[in-house]
């Protein structure tokens, strides 16, 4: 009797085992997603060294210029501020919020997930129940609650979005860790006398890292959406710092006369979210070939 093959084989191992090698070339999702995310990062980096105008400069003489204006390429808003400059600096805001929110979520969620998987039942079970409970508080609701008490700010938004995203990391990492813990090399490590800490750090964490990276990309998309929604409601990034969500909110009163003011930041938000979602999907396909057909 042959033992069942472990899933997700390395291509070389698979070839040795007589299975067709798993195709590992990057799929279209990964390429397009990485390109879009790269573009957003470049926009944000460019904004540090160059913007066509000062994004916060009010210029009464240049109000509501149309897209394609020789001076204001993407037009200007009702205060005469340059839309392109605001988009560039807004990319910075978006990425900053995303990095901090996902950082908070990962730093709390990953250890929680590993602990929940390795801890005895009396500790692991309540931990996961707590995570389930936290799911009843979506990012936006938490952020609005925080804002009710502390007032709206970028920091409040980032922390609230981060905390709301903790359960998704914790649950994913826990299920990944449980799989690792049932593997033979963990059994071997146990037999060799390695401590629980050692197993957690040496075996579990490296083996769930790909799950974490995929989840980080997906969580980033959620953070971008939540930041945009919060800024749209006036609880996110406070003025004058440019933010895509607030640009959209400010455009709303001019929807009848200048809908382009909504299209530009709207497209930026949608594109960024699309990029991170695609990147997440692409990474998942790459790390987990079993899912290849499903997406």
């Amino acid at each position: 009797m042959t033992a069942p093959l472990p899933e997700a084989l390395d291509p070389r191992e698979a070839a040795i085992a007589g299975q067709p090698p798993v195709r590992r070339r990057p799929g279209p999702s990964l390429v397009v997603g990485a390109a879009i995310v790269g573009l957003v990062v470049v926009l944000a980096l460019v904004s540090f060294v160059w913007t066509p105008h000062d994004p916060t400069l009010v210029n009464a003489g240049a109000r509501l210029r149309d897209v394609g204006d020789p001076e204001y390429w993407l037009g200007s808003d009702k205060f005469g501020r340059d839309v392109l400059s605001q988009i560039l600096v807004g990319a910075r805001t978006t990425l900053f919020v995303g990095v901090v929110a996902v950082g908070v979520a990962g730093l709390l969620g990953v250890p929680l997930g590993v602990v929940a998987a390795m801890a005895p039942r009396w500790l692991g079970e309540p931990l996961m129940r707590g995570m389930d409970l936290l799911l009843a508080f979506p990012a936006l609701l938490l952020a609005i609650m925080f804002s009710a008490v502390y007032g709206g700010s970028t920091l409040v938004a980032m922390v609230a979005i981060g905390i709301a995203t903790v359960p998704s990391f914790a649950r994913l990492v826990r299920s990944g860790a449980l799989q690792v813990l049932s593997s033979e090399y963990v059994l071997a490590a146990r037999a060799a006398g390695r401590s629980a800490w050692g197993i957690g750090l040496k075996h579990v964490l490296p083996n769930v890292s790909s799950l974490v990276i995929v989840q980080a990309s997906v969580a980033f998309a959620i953070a971008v959406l939540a930041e945009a929604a919060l800024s749209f409601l006036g609880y996110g990034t406070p003025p004058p710092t440019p933010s895509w969500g607030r640009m959209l909110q400010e455009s709303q009163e001019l929807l009848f006369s200048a809908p382009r003011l909504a299209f530009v930041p709207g497209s930026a938000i949608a594109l960024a979210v699309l990029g991170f979602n695609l990147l997440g999907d692409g990474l998942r396909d790459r790390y987990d070939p079993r899912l290849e057909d499903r997406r």
Partner: protein
Amino acid sequence: MLLHLVRRTAVLLASLAVSSALVFGFMVLLPGDPARVALGVNASEEAVGRLRTEFGLDRPIVEQYVSWVSGLLRLDLGRSYVSQVEIAPQILDRLQVTLWLVGCAMVLAVVVAVPVGTLMALHHRRVSGLVLSAVAQVGVAVPAFLAGILLITVFAVRLGWLPANGWTPPNEDPVQFLRQLVLPGLSLGLVQGAVLTRYVRSSVLDVQREDYIRTARAKGLGPFRALWRHGFRNAAIPVVTVLALQLSTLLIGAVVVERVFVIPGLGSLLLDQVSNRDLVFVQDIVMLLVLAVLLVNFVVDVLYVVIDPRLRVGRP
């Protein structure tokens, strides 16, 4: 089945107890005295003191919590610190509006997602399936408020077919009610539909690989009939779960969409009270939203067993 129900009910009650303590603790234990916050920085010490006594804020925290929870159980939410009005009737009034919106969005999402997702799964190796997947992927990336703004620019500004905003109760003018419900319902529903479509697709794809579908096809059933007779109930389980999880997204998405379309729903009420700094009111609305999410999760957990009889025998 009974054991399952009892366990789920216990989990629900425990979750409600913990989350009510969390919401209460969050609003009460944080820096700042609610009475001071409600009256503003310039209020006199006496006025703040009077308000504290009137609303029992000088009582011990535990006593305040117990009186708040027992009020919730009697559906007596008390009065607002700021405007002094009864909270419960206001919330009930606004809740109806939000439920119309969320209900409409949910129906739309299912109506779009189930056929489109199934088609995507059955055509997943063809161009049509890929195109639909790409469209769904873009749909997922568009936040509801952006969809709302885009729909307004097209259908209200350009074409002038539908009103850009506002709300009319259905019993006042049913036609106007429907006209005003279309755009907000669409903006909330289409985006959720796009998310749901992807789950329907992967769920149907999973089921397609099962032996019983192959057997059904071998018996001579066509792909649709085999799926309809044997696959749908199996594919429905993950989809129903996602649908339930989406309810919290929809409720909270409604907050933003209500802002876009100037709809007097629960979300607008929540945001108004946040800007009024009326913490008790905010606390009540948040608790209601959390209650709604927990209740739906409970119903789904119970529904699993109805959808999938196998769960009745196996693990409770």
